[in-house]
């Protein structure tokens, strides 16, 4: 566990080696929490500036990608004199294992936070295996 500090920093998303972006926008890696529950895996990502319409969750084979588009709001006629954070899109990719029920993935965005529910497939839900005592 890291030491609890107030320090935050937005990290730019990594690109595949040799690849370039086609748009001038910056892309950041959202901070995520992943919680494993009994029935499902719950993923929470901070994506300020993103709402239900501007988030894309795609699943291709084993790769789950979340992408959030952000329209920067620039106050008209004002100068930016102090900047602690940059504005840009968000992207992050996860590799899923077979234990996820792909059909049942649910996503919602509220107050700039994406919440993804990844239900576990029937076969891997916790099963109690009775241990027989030897006579």
């Amino acid at each position, binding site marked *: 566990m890291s030491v609890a500090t*107030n320090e*935050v920093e937005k990290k730019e998303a990594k690109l595949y080696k040799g690849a370039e972006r086609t748009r001038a926008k910056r892309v950041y890696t959202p*901070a995520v929490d992943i*919680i494993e529950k009994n029935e499902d895996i719950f993923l929470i990502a*901070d994506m*300020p*500036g993103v709402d239900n319409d501007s988030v894309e969750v795609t699943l291709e084979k084993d790769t789950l990608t979340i992408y959030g588009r952000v329209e920067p709001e620039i106050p008209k006629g004002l*100068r930016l004199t102090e900047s602690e954070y940059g504005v840009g899109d968000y992207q992050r990719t996860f590799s899923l294992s077979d234990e996820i029920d792909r059909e049942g993935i649910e996503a919602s965005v509220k107050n700039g936070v994406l919440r993804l529910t990844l239900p576990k497939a029937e076969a891997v839900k916790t099963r109690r295996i009775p241990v027989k005592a030897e006579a």
Partner: protein
Amino acid sequence: MLWTEFNNNTFVDPWGDFERLNRMLSRVSSQNNCEFPAVNLWVDSDLSVVTTEIPGIDSDDIEISVIEKSLTLSGTRKADELKDKEAFHRRERWHGKFSKTIELPFKVETSKVNATFKKGILNITLPRAEQEKPRKIDIKLD
């Protein structure tokens, strides 16, 4: 990398090395680390706008106070609580209590401060105090 740089100099300038070291250190310390929440400040001659990213918090949980030139943002970002048999696989999101004060370039008309909270972004408009606004002075002719 550093050593080859050092060795290539046949004539060693000790101050040059110090300067190089200083540049390297300032590059490390000037990284964008800042206290939560990160703030951008936009300024005009009679208006300033503060934007900040506080995702996952309700607008009722943010407290904004303005005294003369300083703006204070405070609140709590709650962590998701774990129930029995739940475990964190990854925990990167910041949570806890925050309080941050920003110094503005001028005194603010506190009654006219306006704040909106949308998609996790807080936007505060702070107009400059009337008595502080720059006044145009006419030059009298004799």
